């Protein structure tokens, strides 16, 4: 893959890319609260710990399924490249679009959270805001601009930056939670953590929202060309990220379950529940928390777009997307054209949501849920393609067929139930995703009929080069 800086990224930035795309600090504070009051459909929330535990189990299964492919192919466009090798280019187009959709929506949601929490920060600091939108829109634009700059400058810098932000945010949030519980210990009851409300319908949709706290862990699979020793670092990063973040979520979900159960309804239903909760104890705590959350989601928007543009860039190189997005920056060697194409779209949506005056919380649930559908769709097809990928290179085993089938079925069940539940509840969001899938199938069909040559070039990846081979020369 010409144009990108090859095999230079050490393990830590690769891991940072995964962690940042997942945005555990932001997710652990925002997403459990979204699941909790079941904002989605207003029904009684399922058990938070169970929901997150199941979501974690499914994500670990997905990472186990992606790992054999990550060990064998230095992909530049992640699941898209894997599927092209396993199930062929037409299916890959659907996976690519689905993944791009997922990354884009999560990036949009991230920018929206950044805006929401920075506005909240001003409120907690006692700055009078007639209309929080006056702060939110410029903040979103500013964040998008800064993200653009960091991404064009290079993944090395943006990865280090995001890792730093995440570490600080996680530390701050953990300390704040411990302090909060230390202050409020006598009032706390842990019974709800282990109580099961017996609501299976909302459990499924809860899992899909909880899954959105994990998505992005696969994003290092887009760094196969840039990572140093990609066949070690990429599988390691995608294996450990869901485990590490899952443990963080379980801790934070139990904590929030306790905290929010006892909280007044106005807080549980707020867009920034945890921050409101802290504001009761100390506005300074709440402000620090706001800053940590905003920073973490800022990192998430960077990481999501970083992964997105690498898929888009690959498609540009293959000719199944405009060729111009396949151009890289001559100096920084990043897919700069793809970044410049994608960022305006990713920025405009949260701005519109804010200006339209819709509830940020509702906007977030919609974006996260839709984004999750995008990720889940990509995960399902990529998982299903794993055994075919291995068979094609002559390395399939019985275990790989079992694993591929199990993961595909588990993901399929979640997606199916969530779809059914969301349609029952009268939500039409799923149709937006279904339309995308249909469009991708039609697009692939048109390509096949009109430009079969371009379709056959789908699935480029970082191939072995002359310099990777043993040359038979002696080392001085």
């Amino acid at each position, binding site marked *: 893959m010409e144009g990108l800086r090859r095999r230079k990224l050490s393990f830590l930035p690769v891991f940072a890319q995964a962690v940042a795309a997942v945005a555990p600090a932001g997710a652990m504070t925002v997403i459990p609260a979204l699941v909790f009051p079941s904002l989605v459909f207003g029904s009684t929330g399922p058990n938070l710990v169970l929901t997150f535990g199941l979501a974690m189990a499914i994500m670990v299964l997905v990472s186990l399924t992606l790992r054999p492919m990550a060990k*064998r192919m230095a992909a530049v466009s992640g699941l898209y490249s894997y599927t092209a090798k396993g199930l062929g280019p037409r299916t890959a187009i659907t996976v690519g679009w689905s993944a791009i959709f997922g990354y884009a929506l999560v990036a949009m949601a991230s920018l929206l959270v950044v805006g929401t929490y920075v506005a909240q920060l001003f409120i907690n600091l006692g700055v009078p805001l007639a209309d929080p939108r006056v702060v939110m829109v410029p903040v979103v634009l500013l964040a998008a601009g800064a993200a653009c700059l960091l991404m064009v400058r290079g993944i090395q810098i943006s990865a280090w930056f995001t890792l730093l932000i995440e570490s600080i945010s996680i530390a701050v949030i953990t300390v704040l939670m411990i302090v909060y519980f230390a202050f409020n210990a006598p009032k706390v009851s842990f019974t709800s953590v282990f109580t099961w409300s017996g609501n299976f319908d909302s459990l499924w949709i809860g899992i899909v929202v909880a899954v959105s706290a994990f998505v992005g862990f696969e994003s290092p699979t887009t760094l196969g060309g840039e990572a140093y*020793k990609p*066949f070690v670092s990429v599988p390691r990063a995608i294996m450990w990220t869901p485990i590490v973040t899952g443990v963080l979520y379980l801790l934070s979900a139990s904590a929030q379950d306790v905290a929010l159960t006892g909280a007044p309804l106005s807080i549980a239903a707020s867009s920034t529940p945890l921050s409101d909760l802290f504001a009761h104890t100390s506005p300074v705590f709440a402000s620090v928390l706001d800053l940590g959350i905003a920073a973490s989601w800022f990192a998430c928007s960077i990481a999501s777009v970083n992964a997105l543009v690498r898929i888009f860039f690959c498609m540009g190189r293959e000719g199944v997307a405009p060729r111009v997005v396949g151009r890289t920056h001559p100096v920084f060697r990043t897919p700069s054209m793809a970044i410049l194409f994608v960022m305006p779209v990713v920025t405009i949506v949260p701005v519109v949501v804010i200006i339209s005056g819709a509830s940020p919380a509702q906007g977030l649930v919609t974006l996260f849920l839709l984004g999750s559908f995008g990720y889940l769709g990509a995960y399902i097809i990529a998982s299903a393609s794993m055994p075919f990928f291995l068979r094609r290179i002559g390395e399939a*085993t019985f275990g790989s067929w079992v694993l591929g089938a199990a993961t595909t079925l588990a993901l399929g069940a979640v997606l199916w139930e969530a779809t059914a539940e969301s349609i029952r509840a009268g939500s039409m969001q799923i149709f937006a995703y279904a339309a995308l899938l249909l469009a991708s199938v039609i697009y692939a069909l048109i390509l096949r009929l009109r430009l079969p040559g371009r379709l056959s070039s789908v699935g480029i990846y970082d191939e*072995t080069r002359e*310099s990777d081979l043993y040359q038979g020369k002696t080392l*001085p």
Partner: protein
Amino acid sequence: MTYRPVNAGSNTVSNPLRILEVVARFGTGTTAKEITDTLQMAPATAYRMLNALVGDEYLVRTSDLRGFALGHAISGLITAATPPTVPTAARAVIEEFRRGNRFTVHLFMFRNASLRIADEDPYYPLRSAYEMLRYPHASAAGKLMLAELDDLSASLPGGQLAKLTAHTITNRAKLEEQLEEIRFNGEASEVNEMEQGSSSLALPVRMPNGSVGAALCLSGPSERFAAIYEHADAARELTVQLAPLLF
């Protein structure tokens, strides 16, 4: 070489080496199936090892991902393990030079950041061959090699530099300083640093790309170092003669 069936579980450390050997023998494009068939190894075990070897770049996959080839990481092992071969013509010119003076003349080659004895003086064999190879900071040929390296850590383990005599350089800063001089002068010398009473002068044999690939080393008693140095010009001429014969 014969391949006996391997019980995969019995010696897991050797199996990756057997895999490397099969790939080296069959050449670029060796498939996983060929490897499991040849070694009679369980496929799942073989795939796991192959992926580990690919991960560390001892092997690489060919473009269709089915085949394997030896990766660049293996060159360190092969280079370090293969003894240097010196063509007869090169041996002959060194032999002629030996007859022209009364000092010891050895040829060392640099291999993967370590010294290898390429042509030992038959009349005065090396007395401290082990020390020569292990402590490059104490010998003239070793210092000539160190001066070529970007990173000394491969040749000089961290910590204290070994003190072989009272004159051995054990201060890293001082060594770096001397290496800078060696790079500038294109020659390295050592007086009583390896062994009390013995000294040597090393001159570079350059490869076509200009980097130093071997050292021609003259040694003798320390009190006669000035006399050794008188042969420097003749020795330098010899290195120019040797270069095309060796590289």
